[in-house]
């Protein structure tokens, strides 16, 4: 059964391009130009994934509203923001709304596709309760590579996909220095250094909210980061 993806994007050329690319990957794609169309279209049947732009035609924050409405309908629906807005504020706001990922339009199609497939893989893994054979354990940290879930001391850490990939890249080889470019390619991101820094900050905060003594991610200024055991 093909997965269904809804694209809500007001720019017709981008919408068509993404839709074409996704269809080529075998996904079933429904494209909407604005929030009303999207809500109407998804009223009857929810897609597996919604890719939403924040600014929708005349609604500046139409994407956020849509995300909230969709999340209210379904806990399981995967939501990715794909937008031109790259400010920290928007990123945080989008993720708080319950989006699984937040991507800027810089992202290349192959990167986007990789993320989408990873997201679906995680959803499958969560759904199938498969064996935990792909488990990475580093001290208190446990990474379930199938479900793409992280736990610290047994508590689940609510990491986004990007964050999970970053933690994985660091923790795979503890003590090894990972520079920013490395982290970026692991997380399939095309962002600047500051974004990496703010991702790392968010990851640290998420761990620290579970364990205030968390200091496993070490900053080597000017060079990168490494996992400390």
């Amino acid at each position, binding site marked *: 059964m093909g997965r269904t993806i809804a694209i809500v994007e007001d720019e017709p050329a981008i919408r068509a391009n993404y839709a074409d690319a996704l269809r080529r990957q075998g996904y079933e794609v429904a494209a909407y130009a604005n929030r009303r169309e999207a809500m109407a279209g998804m009223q009857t049947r929810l897609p597996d994934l919604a890719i939403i732009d924040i600014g929708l035609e005349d609604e500046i924050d139409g994407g956020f509203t849509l995300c909230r409405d969709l999340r209210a309908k379904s806990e399981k629906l995967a939501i990715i923001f794909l937008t*031109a807005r790259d400010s920290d504020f928007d990123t945080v706001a989008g993720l708080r709304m319950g989006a699984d990922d937040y991507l800027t*339009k*810089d992202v290349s199609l192959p990167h986007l596709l990789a993320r989408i497939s990873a997201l679906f893989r995680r959803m499958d893994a969560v759904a199938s309760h498969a064996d935990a054979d792909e488990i990475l354990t580093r001290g208190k940290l446990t990474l379930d590579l199938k479900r793409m879930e992280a736990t610290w001391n047994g508590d689940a850490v609510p990491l986004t996909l990007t964050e999970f990939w970053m933690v994985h890249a660091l923790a795979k080889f503890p003590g090894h220095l990972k520079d920013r470019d490395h982290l970026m390619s692991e997380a399939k991101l095309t962002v600047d250094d*500051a974004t990496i820094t*703010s991702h790392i900050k968010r990851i640290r905060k998420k761990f620290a909210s579970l364990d205030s003594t968390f200091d496993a991610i070490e900053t080597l*200024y*000017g*060079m*990168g980061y490494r996992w400390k055991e």
Partner: protein
Amino acid sequence: MIKPRFSIRAKLLLVSLTLLAVPWVGLSFVKEVERALRQGHEQSVAATAQAVATALHDRPRLFEPQPGHESPWHEPGDLYLFALPAAMEVDGAASDWPATLAARTYTLAPTSDSTPASNAAFKLRLGQHGAYVYALIEVTDAQVHYRAAQNMLLETADHIEFALTTPEGEFKRFAVSPMRPGTGVAHAVQFQDGKLALAQPEPRITTVWRETPIGYNVELSLPQSLLGEKLAFASADVSAPESGISTWVTTSTVAQREGMGRLIVPSPEIQQVVQGLGRATSRIRVVDKSQRVIAEMGSLKQAQQALAPTEQSLLERIKAHTLRPIYARLLQQPTDAFTDDSAKALRLETREIESALRGVAQTGRRATADGQAVIVSSAHPIWVQDQIIGVAVSEETTNSVLTLRNQVLEKLFTSVLAVFLIVALGMLLFASRLSYRIRKLSNEAEAAIDAKGRVVGGLKQSAHATDEIGDLSRGFSSVLARLGQYNHYLENMASRLSHELRTPIAVVRSSLDNLAQQSVPDEARVYMERAQDGIRRLNTLLTRMTEARQLEQALQSAERESFDLIPVVAGCVEGYRGAYPGVDFNLRIPSQPIFLSGGPDLIAQMLDKLISNAVDFHSGGTSIDLALARDKQQAVLTLSNEGPPLPAEMEGQLFQSMVSVRPRQTDDEPHLGFGLYIVRLIAEYHGGSVRAENRKDGAGVVVTVTLPTN
């Protein structure tokens, strides 16, 4: 050439100097007033003279000398000329002289030497009728000696000598020394071989010598025209012709003009009339036809009035101590300390009197000989029928006018001075206030734009004032606001641009990505790759452009932590050694930790930008020197590289958004001039500053970042 700089204050004070024209105008006004006062004064003096003259019109008797009165200005030796009822018969007898005219007796002046007291004396009667003056001298002499014929020497015989001054002032000396009693004429007296001797006879003076039981009488008549101001008589007694003059009795000296007695024509009735007309400040004199003073009243000098010490206000006292001396120096002060050269004169010879004697009343003014005062003198003729018998002269000093004028001037000067002071003070205060406001405005205007050209504030000074300075302030404020908006627009331009460009780029990019999935001819693939490369660079460009804005946003919500600057700098430099293998980095760091409050990531980001800049600009083969030092409460990071110096005009602007001094390069990395702007943002976030200068040796550039420590 340096232009002299005048402040508004100085200019306004200069302008207020035009007020000094007011006293000038006042002065000319006062002069006008003084002229009017003088005129009035002259008129009043003339009126006095006229009043006196009117009172004396048609009273000829008043002008006849009256016996029995002494002149108020009598001096010993003075002789009185009284009016005689009829012409005297010159016969040497006293019988025809009126009884009312008492004879005056002259005796030997008591001497200090012990000559035996002599009874030598003579009685003198002096009178006038018509054009002749008569004199009768009765000499007491036991033995009368007469002059021998041919002997002209005076000392050999008893004789009468008299001296006079003519109306022209000529001194003349005469003697009566006959050879026998009888009628004769007087002779002029001259020195002959050191002795007095008779010279030519004077036929106008008739004399009679007559012996009496007690001695002899001499009566003489002489025309009044011969007589001037002074007259003196003397009788010489000779005991024996060989022994010379033994006794010498005189009215006053006859030897020379000085010391001679005056000839006084007293007129008590005129004096009484004049008394009634008298005024305190003027002198009234009446002169007869021959210009002799016959009555005088009043004085030119005022009696000094003792000033009662009055209660003075403070202002008055200040005035008295500060201004009065100045006025006293500047203004001509009326004074009574002048020498009245015509005081007690027996004859007055002024133009006014001469004019009045011709029948024309005249008023004139003359300065006293010492120049201390000016006397206004008015003469008015006194008529009897159509004959002028005398002149009334009224005289006053101009002191009263002068006093009045001085009072007006003082008041004028004082009030003008006060007004000037008040206005000047007001101007000064006003100008100070004005220049203070303008200076403050100018300072604020200067401070409104910082050294980096950013608008940092508005203007508060005079913002609500309704005057021109308020307008200026508001105008400047609105200019600043617009400038600020424009600056803001420029600074936001980058992020807006990047935002707007994102969508079309995403269109191109996704299209290219889709195209890559298609079967594309190989020869087309190279163009696709080029297009993708272009898109990638465009993307980097956008990322760079948004970096600054993202940082600005991040800084607003960034959490501060305390951290040691040393490991951050050391770690970064270690990283750069790996990142730029061809470049040599020298780092000097202190041993003591330097704690800052802020974000270590931000510091690292700042270093990235600085190092990338230094690497791009450094000359190949040279090293990049970093030094971290602590200076009091500041951490000072210097980064020096050899390379091309900064263009002079760019110093101070380097750290602004979208400013770049890089030459156009063909490398892949686009440069928009955001790197050093980010450095500035981070430095300022930490409360520090950054500046770039050419190295002292001119061989490169040194960037200094100053950050306050914890």
